[in-house]
């Protein structure tokens, strides 16, 4: 894929979901589906994402001449681009006023094929999910938060910060990291239940605000996850079973063991061998009941959950069977500090959540742990 334009400029893909966040202001807890959108407009909702989009583009005005902004027609990016005096390359076609997820996916696909250096989108978890389905981790992606559901870790702090991060990235000074794409089941959410699924991982540039100035290098993150993985493996006992939850840090444990650990699923390991892959609650219970077992989990999503988001297979029954003293929580120190708050648990079992709360030890390196607060 040719990432260098003929004119030597960087290619920046730009997708706006004009309906992102529509449901939020009128209390609809999400904006998925034409019915919900119509309901939102009936309730007097006003589009939220265009303003976020222009705010971000304004932050990029200084480098206008150095980039080719590649976008989709009308309200999917072209309008905002022209408003901010960019001369965008406009791909594809849409029916104005009637855009859907399919348009987002097509846009992302076409921009990936064109070889954009970075794909910038304005939207929420739903939009992130659509982009993930279209491009996976082929292209670096950065989100400008404009949705109701923002549980994924793929967003910049704000539109202005997104612009700064884009500039850093295009200068080769922002490392990329795999970040979770989450989506909350909206029907469940409206009924008062939060059920978040871990959809996948996007490749996202991250802000170095919590890493001192000169220290760049994507090796930083992978070095510490490797150290964590080595420590966990060194602690493993042959007479124990190990439930390995989803997430990149736990995947690193799998890599250290030399097994093909699923990134999104829950696997079971015994004597350093994979004995079960992508297991659900029943399968887990069948395999571990009565056995000495430990659970290895990490933080999933941007909110700090160690149970209840993306790993519901490790259900309250599973946790009780294993015993809460047999939990191994792993995370890089950087991730913990970036939460700027406690770890969270939401297993659905209130008593269990209460018993898991307090202060726990998290493995943050080789022979290194951090004490962190857990709340429910």
């Amino acid at each position, binding site marked *: 894929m040719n990432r260098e334009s003929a004119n030597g400029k960087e290619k920046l893909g730009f997708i706006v979901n004009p309906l992102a966040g529509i449901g939020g202001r009128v209390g609809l807890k999400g904006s998925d589906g034409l019915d919900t959108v119509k309901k939102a407009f009936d309730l007097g909702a006003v589009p939220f994402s265009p303003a976020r989009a222009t705010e971000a583009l304004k932050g990029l005005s200084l480098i206008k001449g150095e980039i080719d902004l590649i976008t989709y027609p009308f309200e999917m990016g072209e309008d905002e681009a022209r408003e901010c005096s960019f001369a965008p390359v406009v791909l594809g076609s849409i029916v104005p006023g009637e855009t859907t997820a399919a348009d987002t996916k097509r846009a992302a696909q076409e921009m990936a094929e064109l070889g954009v250096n970075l794909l910038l989108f304005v939207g929420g978890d739903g939009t992130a999910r659509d982009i993930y389905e279209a491009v996976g981790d082929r292209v670096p992606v950065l989100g400008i938060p404009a949705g109701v559901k923002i549980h994924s870790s793929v967003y910049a702090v704000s539109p202005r910060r997104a612009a700064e991060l884009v500039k850093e990235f295009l200068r080769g000074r922002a490392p990329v990291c795999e970040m979770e794409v989450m989506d909350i089941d909206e029907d469940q959410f409206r009924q008062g239940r939060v059920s978040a699924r871990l959809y996948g991982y996007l490749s996202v540039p991250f802000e170095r605000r*919590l890493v*001192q*100035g000169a220290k760049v*290098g994507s090796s930083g993150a992978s070095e510490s996850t490797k150290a964590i993985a080595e420590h966990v493996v060194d602690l493993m006992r042959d007479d124990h079973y190990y439930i390995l939850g989803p997430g990149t840090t736990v995947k690193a444990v799998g890599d250290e063991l030399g097994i093909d650990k699923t990134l999104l699923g829950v696997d079971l390991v015994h004597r350093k061998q994979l004995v079960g892959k992508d297991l659900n609650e029943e399968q887990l219970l069948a395999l571990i009941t009565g056995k000495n077992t430990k659970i290895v989990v990490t933080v999933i999503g941007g909110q700090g959950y160690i149970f209840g988001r993306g790993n519901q297979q490790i259900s309250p029954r599973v946790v009780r069977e294993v015993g809460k003293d047999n939990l191994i929580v792993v995370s890089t120190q950087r991730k913990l*500090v970036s939460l700027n708050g406690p770890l969270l648990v939401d297993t659905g079992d209130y008593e269990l959540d209460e018993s898991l709360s307090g*202060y*726990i030890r998290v493995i*943050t390196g080789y022979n*290194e742990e951090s004490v962190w607060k857990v709340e429910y």
Partner: protein
Amino acid sequence: MTTETLTHGEYDKHREYEQIETGYQAVRWHEPVIYELSRKGSRNQIVPEAEEEIRSKVGDVVSHIPEQMRRENPPELPELSEPEIMRHYLRLSQQTLGFDSGISIGLGTCTMKYSPKVNDQLARLPQLSEVHPLQPEDTIQGILEIMYELRNWLCELSGMDEFSIQPRGGSHGVYANACIMRAYHRSRGDAKRDEVITCAVSHPCNAGCPSTAGFKVIQLYPDKETGDIGLQALKAAVSERTAGLMLTAPYDTGVFDSEIGEYIKVVHEAGGLVSLDQANFNGVMTRLRAGDIGADLMHFNLHKTFSTPHGSCGPATGAIGVKQELRKFLPVPVVEFDGSRYHLNYDLPQSIEKVGSFYGVVMNALKAYAWIMAMGARGLREAAEWAVINNNYLIKKLLEIRGIGIAWPNRGKLQEARFTLEKLKEETGVGTSDFNLRITDYGVQSYFESHEPVIIPEPVTPEASDTVSKEDLDRFVEIFRRVSEEAYTDPGIVKTAPHRCAIHQTDPEPLHDPKKTVTTWRARLKKHE
């Protein structure tokens, strides 16, 4: 991006920014590496040959050097004349901002107080500078007396019972203390104690050193609201595996943990030892004694509170202090006095052995001794007061500047404080690393941001210390005010700084790639072979 990599437009802008008057313009020499100045046959002094009579009496001098130590080939030194060497190093020094040429208020946690020149002169006296470290004890009684007196005063200031000035720096002192902890537990047959607890706003050596000494490190973090660790968190870290707690008090954030007395009690009850890193002693000197609040070990940085010069990784001293029951584990030798003579005692069978060559950095001992003598008890008390007053004046003034905030605003700060440029970054795009480069255009050293882990975003950690003038403080504040204003009016000036320094910008990325960096000329030649 160095000036060579700027685009045409950027370069023109840079030339514009260079014209902005800041009261400083660095000397700019395009000075090569000295090897590149070498010209075959250039010579410095030509040492004349000794006369025949002397040569025949002395014989072959080289034969005194053991055969296996003799060079086969002469060293490949660069060939220059004396004036060329003089010029080269002088030019390099002209391009460097140092303590003697500018304000160092920005360097938090370092305690950059003034090192009186008279103490440097004392250290250069031949009675000290020409002494051989292996000379017999009875020829160095004066030096040992100074070391012993210093030891007495350090005990008095810390509330500890014995000192060693063997460790060559603060981290070295913390490492020695971690080794003493290990030796203590081992001597009691307590092998299962393999964990040391520390916190993220202590100096990171409080984590790194016990880790190097073989301990597992349990890291605690300051509470977002209070700035303290919190007793609940500490209790979650303490167990029967706890060998000890290693904390810096007050923290590098200037906060003195309000529950530290409780932590010490809890750790002691669990059978662990407590070591206090007193690098920040400048804020509490004569008002807090580590020994009084229950510490079993501690250390002072003589090159911080006690004014001996910061060596830039040169001769520093981390003086470690211990309670009586840990004395037997101290590194040897320990200086002792029997009422009439001073001795170097090497006979401590349970010692953690030598941690440095000979018996310490004697020059530092002398300078610290001289400084304490000159200050006197009242002066020491005032020094701490001034350190805290100056810091709080700085805090008040800096917080009047747009875009600057402070961590834990509700907590009192002692010797220093951690500020944040998060608001500035949000509103202008200018963050702490940009800001830090621009202030050097005003002729002051860069400030210290933060140790890892970086908990406060876009951090700034200055430390005024006791030896700054109000004019210095006001100038430092004025510079911050100017740069903040620049950030709001034309952020390009700050983001492409520096403009008035010897070098424009360096790309730090290659420094982290061993494939792209060498540290010696010989390695460079090898790489290009």
